[in-house]
């Protein structure tokens, strides 16, 4: 009971702090429909054509890491979200289109149908133990450097996306984390994760976190594959409950370790 009260206070405090400009289209039933084509054009590449998330968070859950008010949604669309891939749209869309998009995002919000059922604590143990995920992923100050950093991953990816990344490692590759393989003229095969790749050269890091740079003209072959270097083994390694636990752990990673 006491806990609910505390949450209530926090929510009221947040609303108070976020009282900003009001959506001029809040009572306009056509605004959401007008915002839809704008959303599909500008937002769908990351948030999904139906706003269900992808590289960017799921916007249909009705809860947003930037805050729940229209003003907070406007703010993040207008000015972007520091520390994430979300850019600013004010220069391209202007106030009115952004407010229409806020109306659209509100219109697609529905009760969360994919509750996170796993146990965070168990997930944390699996992450650093049985899964050995920390060999390639940094959380806070701990972990390896081959894969994307996961310190704030719960803020930037939906739970469904995290689950998919675990069981289908090539479902959506994080840009830049592609596999590069070079065969030198003396027949040595080297591979690692892309740092840069172009028409004339390749730079990559291998599993021992050693950097390489090669000119295409000086090696026997050079290729980049749009596949993940993450082992496609977790569906077999973990049972359903363990996967739920891992998703719960990752969904709970909000960046506290570095703040």
């Amino acid at each position: 009971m006491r806990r609910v009260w505390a949450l209530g206070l926090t929510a009221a405090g947040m609303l108070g702090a976020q009282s900003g400009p009001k959506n001029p289209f809040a009572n306009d039933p056509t605004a959401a429909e007008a915002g839809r084509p704008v959303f599909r054009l500008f937002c769908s590449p990351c948030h999904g054509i139906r706003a269900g998330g992808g590289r960017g968070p799921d916007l249909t859950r009705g809860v947003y890491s930037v805050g729940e008010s229209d003003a907070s949604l406007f703010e993040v669309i207008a000015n972007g979200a520091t520390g994430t891939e979300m850019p600013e749209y004010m220069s391209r869309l202007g106030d009115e289109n952004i407010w229409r998009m806020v109306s659209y995002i509100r219109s697609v919000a529905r009760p969360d149908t994919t509750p996170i059922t796993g146990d965070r604590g168990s997930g944390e143990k699996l992450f650093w133990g049985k899964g050995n995920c920390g060999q390639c992923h940094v959380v806070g100050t701990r972990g390896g450097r081959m894969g994307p950093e996961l310190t704030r991953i719960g803020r930037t990816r939906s739970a469904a996306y995290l689950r998919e990344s675990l069981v289908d490692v090539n479902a959506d590759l994080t840009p830049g984390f592609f596999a590069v393989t070079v065969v030198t003229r003396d027949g040595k095969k080297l591979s690692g994760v892309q740092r840069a790749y172009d028409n004339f050269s390749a730079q990559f890091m291998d599993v021992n976190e050693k950097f390489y740079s090669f000119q295409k003209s000086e090696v026997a072959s050079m290729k980049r594959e749009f596949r993940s270097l993450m082992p496609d083994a977790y569906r077999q390694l973990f049972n359903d409950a363990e996967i739920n636990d891992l998703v719960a752990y990752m969904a709970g990673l909000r960046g506290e370790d570095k703040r």
Partner: protein
Amino acid sequence: MRLRTILLLAALPALPAAENDPTTWLTYGKNSRGWRYSEIRQINTANVAQLAPAWSFQTGVFGKFETTPLVFDRMMFVTGPENHAYALDLATGRQMWHYFKPMPRETSVCCGRVNRGFAVLGQKLFKVNLESRLVALDAKTGNVIWETEIDDIKKGYSATVAPLVAKNLVIIGIAGAEFGVRGFVDAYDADTGKRVWRFWTVAGPGDPGSNTWGGDSWKRGGGSTWITGTYDPELNLTYWGTGNPGPDMNGDVRPGDNLYTCAVVALDVDTGQRKWHYQMTPHDVHDWDAIADPVLLDLVIKGEKVKAVVQANRNGFFYALDRATGKLLVAKAYTKVSWADGIGLDGRPILISGQDPTEDGNKSCPGIGGGHNWQATAFSPQTGLYYFTSTEGCQLYYKTDQEFREGQWYQGSTTGPIPTEPTTGAIFGLHPATGETRWKFEMVTPPTSGLLATAGGLVFGGDREGYFFALDARTGKPLWKFQTGGMVIAPPISYMLDGRQYVAVAAGQTMMTFALPKQP
């Protein structure tokens, strides 16, 4: 007698004679035929490996740097993003003057606050500003001589094109097909800035072709003209490519062929009257603008000499047309095409069903940017090959119902990548009389820069990752490269100063020039 000669010279059109001077670069496409071919052979296949930077000029202006610089009178004239422009000393790269006009906030631009270059007549430079205005600047000072409104920015019009000078006219195109504008080509008097004619690229009531637009859809029919046309003084025609109909991906609201969008039009230079048109993509729903350089080549096709205009179209086909009549001579796919099984004898594409955008996304090839998009192309009379870039791959096309609001985005939806099939790039060396590919330089990502061909047997280009490079014009083999540190979006040019050949290109926010090391 002598005075009379001078007067006669002054009365002659300035460009056609001067544009043949290989030491200068006086118009967007090097010549009014759009070849982008330098006759200087000092830098060639044998020595290009030694090419090195001469000077660079940093604008400090963020945004895509798409300019084709002009070079004359020992100066380089460069337009930048955000309505900036510069005159640079050709020997050192030092700034001689700077022009800047802030863009009004309400200006709508679809694809970057860019500009593609100046045109020149005598000592007057002409450029468009983003807010749909045309300005004439004094080449010696950068001072404004006159300024003219092209059309109302509130309607969604904007301007990015490099103007084309023909006779005493400054001919320009317009942008804004993503904002529901009605496109046009305009000609202005070079002395006064007064409009002489306008050709609407969207047929309105009473115009031939008006029955190709259902209802009043012509009012927002798109058909923008954002890449510079070409000019044939003998036929007295100017050739312009036209952009997509609006809204881009939802054709339901504009039933019909939508003339004259996604077409090449030949216009009388004096009147702007349409002599002919050829529509590459009738009723386009994939945003396949036909704005790519319409290049004028004299070809031998099946044993017959023909004056042609060629275009590597965004829809995946290469076309050669008779430039006097518009008759189709050659149409051949140069990249993967899923929407048409060739072009029929009647000149219309043989459509393959199930290729239109849908609510949930439908795969079609090429992707929204082509194929070949707007990036400048080049032709070498030495190899007889036509060079252009292409994005290789397919995309998902989405359709959305959308209500029109003046000045607002009006695209009728979007596209997305096919996750398992990332797009790549290529530069083609193609035989223009047959459409056969002679060579293909494969690139890891979609191309960004324009091209230059030279008598040194070279094709210069750049890439997304910052490389500026030279290919062997006969084989496509890379011979030289330089990492500029910024994306190369602009086309390179070449000129000569004090007996030395230079190649120049904009990369990132920097104008760069290159030359061979001075002999000791």
